[in-house]
């Protein structure tokens, strides 16, 4: 009688322990996962920021390369282009 009572007690204990462990494991793993997500989010935020900064820098660089003074210097000195005179223009009309 006593033997069977002990056995059932051990069984209950094991079940309780199992659930306690499951609970603890789930709780800690969720927390760890959250922390891991935090690291990854921060990493992504940093990457996004770095990319935005790079885009801004490239836009600024592009704008400096398109600096009209520079463009005119290249066009005139390197390519030997000249401004057209107004009489060099030809008006083209489309007959409808």
């Amino acid at each position, binding site marked *: 009688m006593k033997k069977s009572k*002990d056995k059932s007690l*051990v069984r209950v*204990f094991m079940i309780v*322990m199992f659930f*306690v462990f499951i609970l*603890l494991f789930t709780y800690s793993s969720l927390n760890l996962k959250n*922390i891991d997500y*935090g*690291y990854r*989010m*921060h990493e992504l*935020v940093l990457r996004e920021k770095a990319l935005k*900064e790079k885009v*801004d*820098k490239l*836009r*600024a*660089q*592009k*704008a*400096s390369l*398109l*600096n*009209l*003074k520079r463009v*005119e210097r290249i066009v005139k000195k390197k390519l030997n282009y000249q*401004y*057209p005179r*107004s*009489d060099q*223009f*030809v*008006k*083209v*009309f*489309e*007959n409808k």
Partner: protein
Amino acid sequence: MMKINKKERNRAFILFIVFSIWVLFIVYKLVKIQVFDYTKYISKVKSQCNRIFSLHPKRGTIYDCNGDVLAISIRAESAFLSNKDNKESMEIFSLLSKQVRLTYREKKNIKERINKGRKFIWIKRKLEDREYEKLKKIKHNLNSTSTLGFVDEYKRVYPQKTLAAHVLGGVGIDEQGLCGIEYEIDSLIRGKGGKVKVLIDARGKIFEIEYLKQPVAGKDIFLTIDSSIQFFVEEELRRTAEKFRAKKGSVIVMDSKHGSILAMASYPFYDPVRIKHTSQRVLKNVAVSFLYDPGSTFKIILASSALENEVCHPKQIFNCYNGVFHIKNRTIHDIHPYEGLTFEEIIINSSNIGAARIGLRLGKENYYRTLKRFGFGNKTGINLPAEEYGILNSLKKWSNVSVAFLSFGYEVAVTPIQMARAFNVIASEGYLIKPNVLKRVDGIVLPQVKKTKILSSSTGHIMTSIMTEVVNIGTGKQTKIEGIDIAGKTGTTKKIKNGSYEDSYVSSFGGFFPAKNPRITMFVVIDEPKGKFYGGEVAAPLFKTITNRLLIYLNIFPELDKGNEVRI
């Protein structure tokens, strides 16, 4: 089945008890930490791994009307020295000073601060990328109590250098607008700083971010300025100013229909990046802050007023007293003596005596009313700072001869932008349109500015035809371009220095084209040209060269012979 004896059962039971106590202890501790002592531990955690940082807002980008970047903010690092030992800091600084570009004064200043034992010393704000890379290497190799640190900041970049500098203005070291549009709309473009709370682990790695206050980036701005037009306007202005060794000058190019400023150039130019080292005289936007007597360009206001008040008609003849006209105790001269001129001819040949005679016939009340309607003595309201009001005395202060002198642009002070707006009244058939430089703010197109009808269309038409003759046969002949009708008026003013008129002049020319359907209104002013000084000789040729380039850029073709027309 295995048989468990009593001894073993007792052992298992003891183990069970011990294990239960251990588990219960853990559960108790967890409940205590997570529930009962939650606030205590959370505050401890916060104090250990919470950090609060300020976030700098990114200043908005400024574009021209075609979307080309005129000003943009990019990330830049600023280097500082955390001084714990003066001797060590001085050694570090001697290393750093070889890698970054610093002026003698800046170096001296830093050394003084180190010697005074200051704890925080800026080495250089907003480093160049190359400088930052070099300093980073130095920081890595440092082994001292004093440390080198970096702060993330934004740096304003003007990729087009001096282009439209007076319109753009510039910013200070903390990205605050100092002048130009950067100052005028600083609150819009600056944005708002934010605060962020981060959680860091034992290794200093961030694993949680919480925005306490989201930073608001400054708004992007689109100007009405067309950088291509601005570019060649500046080029031609520089050429003219250098040729005549002028003190300063300005050109305003305006869309006749909407009052949008397409180009606004002021000479001498400056680089907005070097604003700290630029004198106040150069920083001034001549277009809105230069006060001068308008001279003969003002005759268009007089003529408009006379026509509007129907006190004379275009063919009416006025006696011009052969070039010398006495009024009270003052004398008015004409450069070329005329016996008699019609109303039209007075404007075409720019006769001061003729203008004075028209003014006297018009009467001071009528003339004053017109001047007020044209907005003289008030700001135009353009969205640029430091605009001058101009000087227009109240009617009570006008002497008996004031109306005569005001008729040819003396006893009044105006700004180039006021004159550009006045010329645009004729171009737009009598509408006074507020000039503006702002087109869009963050994608939102700003409503069109209000127009006020101040002259009748018929007055506008008559004035346009008279001003076209000024260019065809009058004082503005040097502006004439074959095949295109230009309406304009020259102006030459003697400058007052120390209370008397001296031999220094302001040369100006205002006009619009094509005369029949104006698209562009332009005003040119050159201050103190040397050698030549007449408006027709200095300002008018500049107007012509800019017009020639504008015609090509805007696809306005001169009506030449049919030889250059092809029909397909």
